[in-house]
């Protein structure tokens, strides 16, 4: 019997291992200081100003405009980026799961509301909604309040899609005979949903959650292009040179967004954070696809 490889799952797992290594490495081994500035270096007797090209000044991926090592910043950035993506995904799940379960069970206006919310959030590009929300409400909050608003806004534009998937799965599962039997024996709705429906749909929900986290990372990158970033900025002025604005927190989206104008002159500065973000999105999508195939094969 020929064994068919689940290529998306294998690829996803390999990329996930690399990602976890990037998150863990700074705790177990010294990788360098992500905020260390280098104002200039000497190459073949000539003075060179940042951004340094890959390989210069012992920096494998080069540096940003402040002479900070891109590889070190990308390694440190994995933690911030993945942590925020995970947090936003959890908020999405916390909002979508109860709504989807209840809408799938009671149907009626709750199911209609879920469908309408999906149409409304799918109708407008995500970055447009978040730009509007942060532009309008951003003035009312400061510091961590702004961060919370960012997370809630990004979570809010995606949770109806997840809720709709949960609703559909719940509606399908609720038709099974053992659910009817549980209802007939007088089991309360909360118990039926929690003990009988949720365990059955949990596999599909896990696949959706992995996909959702990929979408969250995607929208974080898109928002960075719109100039909406998680971390703050620092103004840096080297002697005799015009001041430059740099991103403060090593976060992939911000590293990409703030440096995208350098694509013509120093393309590696926005490219590597974009590659890191793209690989993580791809990793999650591969994992979701791989898990879906695995569960499909199991029937």
């Amino acid at each position, binding site marked *: 019997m020929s064994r068919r490889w689940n290529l998306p799952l294998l690829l996803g797992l390999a990329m996930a291992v690399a990602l976890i290594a990037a998150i863990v490495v700074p705790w177990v081994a010294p990788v360098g200081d992500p905020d260390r500035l280098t104002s200039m270096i000497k190459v073949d007797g000539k003075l060179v100003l940042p951004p340094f090209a890959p390989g210069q000044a012992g920096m494998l991926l080069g540096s940003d405009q402040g002479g900070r090592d891109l590889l070190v910043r990308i390694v440190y950035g994995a933690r911030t980026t993945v942590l925020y993506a995970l947090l936003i995904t959890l908020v999405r799940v916390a909002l979508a799961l109860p709504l989807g379960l209840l809408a799938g069970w009671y149907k009626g206006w709750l199911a209609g509301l879920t*469908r309408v919310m999906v149409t409304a959030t*799918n*109708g407008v590009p995500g970055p447009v909604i978040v730009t509007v929300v942060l532009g309008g409400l951003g*003035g009312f909050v400061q510091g961590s309040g702004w961060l919370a608003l960012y997370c809630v806004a990004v979570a809010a534009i995606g949770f109806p899609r997840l809720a709709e998937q949960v609703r559909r799965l719940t509606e399908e599962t609720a038709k099974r005979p053992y659910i009817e039997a549980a209802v007939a024996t007088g089991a309360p709705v909360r118990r039926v949903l929690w003990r009988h429906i949720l365990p059955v749909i949990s596999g599909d929900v896990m696949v959706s959650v992995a996909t959702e986290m990929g979408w969250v990372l*995607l929208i974080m990158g*898109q928002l960075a292009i719109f100039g909406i970033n998680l971390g703050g900025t620092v103004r840096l002025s080297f002697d005799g040179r015009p001041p430059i604005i740099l991103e403060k927190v090593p976060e992939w989206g911000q590293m990409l967004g703030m440096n995208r104008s350098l694509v013509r002159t120093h*393309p590696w500065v926005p490219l590597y954070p974009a590659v890191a973000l*793209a690989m993580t999105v*791809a990793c999650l999508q591969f994992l979701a696809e791989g898990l879906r195939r695995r569960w499909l094969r199991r029937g």
Partner: protein
Amino acid sequence: MQRMRTVLRLWVTRLLLLIVSAVLLVGVTMLSKGWVYKLKPPTQFQIVSTEIESVHYDVGQYGAALQKYWADLRAGTLLLTPRTVAGASSLLMNPRNRLPLFEVLRPAWTNSLMLYCASVGAGLGAGVLLGSLVTLRRRFWKSLSMGFSVLGLALPDFGLVLGGQFLTLWASRTMGLKLWPILAAPETERGWLLPLLVLSLPPAAYAARLTAGALDEIMREDYIRTARSKGLHEARVIVGHAMRNALPRILSGLPVMLGVVLSSLPVVELITNWPGLSKWMVGVSEESTATVAVIFLAWGVLMDALAGSLHAAVALPGEEVSP
């Protein structure tokens, strides 16, 4: 009759949704108009001070801004102005920057719409073609079709644009090859390549997945076997019988494809410098942001309703059509 009722319900729901969402979008965008900044008196070296003494929120000012926006919108006299820094006086604003908003948005919207339509068309066409490869009996083509459908949906738009820009730079520096311009230009054919390639990839991948899934099932049906046994040419079996029955399933994914392209459009426009609508959303006044957001909303809802109507028209008997 049932189909007509479904389509009618679909349009009424979308219209109501459009009105409510548009009001919400404008209301939220204009919220920042309610802030009142009290500036410190200017020093002897300044004409106007930019230092803020105190800030408070005035609901009346917010209401007045909303009323003015609505009046200007109805009269078609909305102006496009750059977003001012907190508290900056209008004296600082260059009068030459005040442009009639609708005159600016009209060509921008045309450019965005052209790119959108071309991407959806190219993506759908390529996706259906690639998805049809599963009907070929060689495993390589099947794997290619499935691999493309997974990969196309997994790669993010901004990564693809930056990768494309880097690739053309690298090819030009190392081999002297000019693949496509780094920044898009709608007036030249090459200038379309990068944004079109990036935007058409997700719908192509999604259409390939739907087509492959549908054809894989349909090709095992009895009527396909009958058609083959009658001696029909394989191409005719695929196009005339299998594809005709796969079409409703492919079209059921149209709202998703349209939504994915629309959600990537602003980002691709911004990175490639495409002269579309998105340019007038960032760094401009709240009025402009609100208007562009409502245009995107109307566009998305309209496309969703059109795709839903098309699906309802070709849906097989008994197939569920979401109202």
